[in-house]
């Protein structure tokens, strides 16, 4: 075993047979080391990629395996780089030293290299004898046999684990973009657009792209393809009611002349979905009839702003509703928080109150109560009468409107009947939501296709409206704020709600 510092040993390039053989071994050894490092790197990368794919939900728990895979990949990469650097630092002398150690040749090759380089001292005859011994020994030495390529077990394990993880199905967790923190979200925040791709007449959701553009391909029965893209865009708010925004947020793919066509998921109602129609920007959501029998329609740009959840009471001011279990109440409040219904400052709430009241045509000088008679009378013109409010409230603005009963649907131009998405397949899923206390919220998937008319949306609305009504009736809630709560839920009510 040699012990001198390799840095002080001169690198020589001997012309002799020993030098050539050692140089060849050095090249082979370099390739061996690089191969080992490459395998380790591939293994780490495979694990990292697989874990990243599985943990696409990016829950806090999923970050652990992702981080572990990342570390493993980085270690492998470091190994690979280190092996490369080390092989470049090694010289013939160090390679000969390694071969001598493996072959137990008592530094024969190193000495021969030194003799060939002329750096050895001693009698010429003895030196020739040493060279002869080294040359004879070359044929018996097999450095690769003594130092075979050993694939790093960690690399193999990484490849196996990565391959195995590739067969693990991704969990049904949707990635929802983080909403603005309640109370701090700017009112002009652009609502994230939910992507809804409806291929079937009933409308199904293929995927939801966090923060991406909304793409909704709706194909009404027998009417060919209808495509509506409602992207959230900046624009001036024209005071459109929250119901419009929410309607679009629920995945309404009609989009044609619908105010607040900017689609947003249910959980994204905390912001404002703006369309730039009023500012001259053309609405991207055009309805096209791609089918053989369906007329091609183009939806004009909807220049309205969906300012949905502007009026909500802080959950702390609501008492527990009668008949609601604590768990349900917590769940609802969690969703309320998700919906941006809490956390607003008093100033914000006042401003929201004015906005909503103005939008809905509500007087600001006093509370407006639910008027059953007016509800029965219906026939709201959709322009926001100052009287009572009913489910299926007419939608002011230039978008599609419902009549007061919500039983019919017509566009402003009256050219089209509303699609029937009541039976659209929807399902409740758990979705990661970092702003929720539990980190997960319940979300209606498919509701984007069914819109406000879907069964799941109706279920959610009834459930939340009951809790909100019970909470708003509490004494702690100012009277003026109670109507805001009611107005909010009325505004987002399903069309067929009586």
């Amino acid at each position: 075993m040699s012990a001198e510092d390799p840095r002080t040993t001169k690198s020589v390039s001997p012309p002799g047979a020993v030098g050539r053989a050692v140089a060849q071994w050095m090249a082979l050894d370099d390739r061996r080391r690089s191969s080992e490092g490459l395998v380790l790197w591939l293994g780490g990368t495979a694990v990292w990629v697989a874990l990243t794919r599985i943990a696409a939900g990016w829950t806090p728990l999923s970050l652990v395996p992702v981080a572990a895979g990342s570390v493993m990949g980085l270690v492998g990469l470091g190994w690979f780089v280190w092996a490369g650097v080390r092989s470049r630092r090694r010289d013939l002398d160090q390679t000969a030293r390694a071969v001598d150690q493996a072959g137990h040749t008592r530094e024969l090759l190193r000495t021969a290299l030194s003799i060939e380089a002329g750096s050895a001292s001693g009698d010429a005859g003895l030196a020739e004898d040493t060279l002869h011994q080294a040359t004879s020994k070359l044929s018996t030495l097999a450095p690769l046999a003594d130092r075979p390529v050993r694939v790093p077990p960690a690399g193999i394990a990484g490849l196996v684990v990565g391959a195995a993880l590739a067969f693990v199905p991704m969990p049904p967790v949707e990635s929802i973009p983080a909403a603005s923190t309640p109370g701090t979200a700017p009112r002009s925040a652009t609502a994230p657009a939910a992507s809804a791709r409806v291929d079937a007449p009933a409308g199904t959701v293929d995927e939801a792209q966090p923060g991406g553009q909304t793409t909704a391909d709706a194909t009404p029965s027998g009417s060919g393809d209808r495509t509506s893209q409602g992207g959230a865009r900046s624009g001036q708010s024209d005071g459109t009611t929250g119901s419009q925004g929410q309607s679009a947020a629920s995945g309404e793919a009609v989009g044609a002349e619908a105010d607040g066509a900017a689609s947003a998921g249910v959980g994204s109602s905390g912001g404002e979905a703006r369309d730039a129609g009023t500012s001259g920007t053309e609405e991207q959501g055009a309805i096209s009839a791609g089918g053989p029998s369906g007329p091609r329609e183009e939806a004009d740009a909807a220049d309205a702003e969906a300012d949905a959840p502007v009026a909500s009471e802080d959950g702390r001011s609501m008492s527990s509703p009668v008949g609601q279990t604590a768990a349900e109440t917590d769940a609802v409040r969690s969703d309320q928080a998700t919906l941006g219904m809490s956390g607003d400052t008093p100033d914000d709430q006042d401003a929201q109150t004015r906005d909503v009241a103005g939008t809905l045509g509500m007087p600001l000088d006093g509370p407006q109560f639910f008027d059953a008679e007016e509800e029965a009378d219906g026939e709201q013109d959709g322009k926001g009468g100052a009287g009572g409010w009913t489910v299926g409230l007419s939608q002011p603005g230039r978008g599609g409107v419902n009549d007061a009963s919500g039983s019919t649907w017509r566009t402003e131009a009256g050219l089209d009947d509303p699609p029937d998405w009541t039976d659209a397949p929807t399902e409740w899923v758990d979705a990661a939501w970092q702003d929720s206390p539990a980190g997960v919220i319940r979300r209606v998937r498919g509701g984007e296709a069914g819109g406000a008319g879907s069964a799941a949306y109706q279920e959610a609305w009834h459930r939340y409206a009951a809790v909100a009504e019970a909470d708003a009736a509490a004494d702690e809630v100012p009277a003026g704020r109670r109507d805001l709560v009611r107005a909010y839920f009325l505004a987002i009510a399903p069309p067929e709600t009586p």
Partner: protein
Amino acid sequence: MSPDHPPKGPSSPSPTERIARAQESLARLEAGIRRVYIGQDGLLHDVLTGLVAGGHLLLEGSPGLGKTLLVKTLADCLGLRFSRIQFTPDLMPADITGGPSMVETPTGGTALQFRPGPVFAHVLLADEINRGTPKTQSALLEAMAERAVTVAGERRLLEPPFFVLATQNPIEMEGTYPLPEAQLDRFMFKLQVPFPTLDVLKRIGSQTTRNKLPEAERVMDRLELLEVQQLAADLTVPEHVFDFAGRLVLATHPESDIGPEMVRTAVRFGASPRAMQALVRAGRARALMAGQPRVTTDDVRAVAPLVLTHRVVLGFEAQLDRIGATDVVEAVLAKVTG
């Protein structure tokens, strides 16, 4: 390759044969010494290594361990001229080197004639050298280093081989004069003479208590010894062995950054460049005795404790921490060997 000697002619023995013959001669010498000197195998091997390397040896051990017998037997087996100097405080330098003396000329007159001292020998035993005064001890400096003696302004060369074996008693410190570092550095090895084992003691009791003691026989002549020494000097030493030896020497210096921490705290002065020479020469001798035509780092490592221990000057902190030179050298070897 930088040949130190021209290639031998066709009739010259091959290097392998030369090495084999040297090994055979050294084996005969060792066997001859063992007939008289019982036990101490390691010590005998080290003494022969120093002899082949052409270095001087300092033997340190308790009285009665056979130091003088070993040297006397070695000289007898080699057929070399042997001298013994018993160092005492009143010993004068001229008692070692010799000097001019008044002699009667054939014509009846008188003249000054140089009378060689005991230093003019092939094997010189300086018994209990630490009992001599520093002035007397220094009389050996020139002879040991330059193999020459200058007396009355005239320089006289010593006939090779010149081999000094000095002994000193470590347990009797009163009335002794520790060897100065300069003189210690001239000894290639400092060998500790261990106490014999029970088996050796039994053999000593059975073989040396009869009236007729075994006598040493001449098994090797002077020229043969010189040839062996020359062959050892011709062995191939590759560059990495020089590198290793040099790092060993540097590591004994407290100001060096390649040595262990112990050196920085316990050592006052490290080994000299003469230690480097001794390492390489002793490594060559060891390789030859092993039948190898080249010197390896293992050879240097094996002789390093013998070469470096007495060349390391310890400081006061080493005494406080009970750190010996042997500990320092072991730490140096561990650090440099890595």
